[in-house]
């Protein structure tokens, strides 16, 4: 163990795809994004090739994903939600695959970069605001005036509503970014404990480092849960914002 633990070094952007990638600033993060998009497309192309009435394993997986997101859309937004189903499904599958790819050693979790998640969240924010104004016109501004509130409270409540509305992209992006970063940093820290123990106590330290190793194994299970959960949370919050935009409360 030389010097300090470099827990954040794993998120460093490196040039990908050789000299060509270096020329156009193509990084390992972009590689992971392309890979996750490609995996989804290939999965669906392969899964829906046969279109059997009794689905095989791959087709069952694809149908499961499809029906899961579809139910989420319809339950949260209502029947109109089907219009937004392609968007929600794209966001969900992209983030899900990105999180899952990042769990493998030597792969890059692009959702652990605030730039990526903030872009996604800003897109969702601008899109839902656009949908709100498209559906309701200027009356969408009434969204900031909670119904059934006495008039003298409004000067206090309207600014709060406006602030909480504009906090949406921040909380949406930081939640995903922080979850993924924290998980990967925890792995690195516990792996660093193993090195520290071995360097400090020799053979006894090496035997004792089975404890951080076991913790790391348990963390893999937790991170698997978190990876799926955060994709789900991102998608369902997108649905909730769309519901607000379509129905206004």
């Amino acid at each position, binding site marked *: 163990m030389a010097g300090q633990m470099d827990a*954040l070094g794993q998120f460093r952007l490196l040039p990908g795809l050789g000299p060509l990638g270096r020329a156009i600033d193509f990084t390992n993060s972009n590689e992971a994004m392309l890979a996750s998009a490609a995996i989804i497309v290939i999965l669906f192309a392969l899964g829906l090739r046969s279109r059997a009435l009794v689905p095989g394993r791959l087709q069952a997986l694809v149908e499961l994903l499809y029906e899961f997101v579809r139910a989420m859309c319809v339950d949260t937004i209502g029947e109109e939600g089907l219009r937004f189903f392609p968007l929600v499904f794209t966001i969900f599958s992209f983030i899900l695959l990105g999180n899952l790819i990042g769990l493998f050693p030597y792969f890059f979790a692009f959702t652990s970069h605030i730039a990526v998640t903030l872009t996604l969240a800003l897109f969702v924010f601008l899109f839902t605001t656009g949908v709100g104004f498209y559906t309701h016109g200027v009356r969408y501004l009434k969204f900031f005036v909670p119904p059934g509130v006495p008039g003298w409270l409004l000067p206090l409540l309207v600014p709060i509503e406006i602030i909480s509305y504009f906090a949406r992209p921040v*909380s949406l992006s*930081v*939640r995903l*970014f*922080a*979850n993924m*970063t*924290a998980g990967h940093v925890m792995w690195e820290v516990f792996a660093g404990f193993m090195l520290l123990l071995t360097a400090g106590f020799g053979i006894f330290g090496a035997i004792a480092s089975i404890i951080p190793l076991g913790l790391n194994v348990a963390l893999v299970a937790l991170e698997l849960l*978190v990876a799926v*959960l*955060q994709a*789900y*949370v991102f998608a*369902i919050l997108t649905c909730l914002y769309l519901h607000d935009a379509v129905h206004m409360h």
Partner: protein
Amino acid sequence: MDPQSTALLARDIGAGLATIGVAGAGVGIGNLFGSFVSAVGRNPAARDNMFRDVLLGFALTEAVALYALVIALIILFA
């Protein structure tokens, strides 16, 4: 002590203080699952329906703890 190392010391103390926020998320997650257990005790049939919302609440609560972590990281590295 020279000002440089005092500043480093203060930075580390600040990062440590920032992690206190995690306590709130601990209370929140405990509250969430405690309520879930007692709710399942009253109505075991509704378990699967409730568990979806519990997972969502868990993710939202856990995120609050991670905001504290982000602040600690910003203090340490930015």
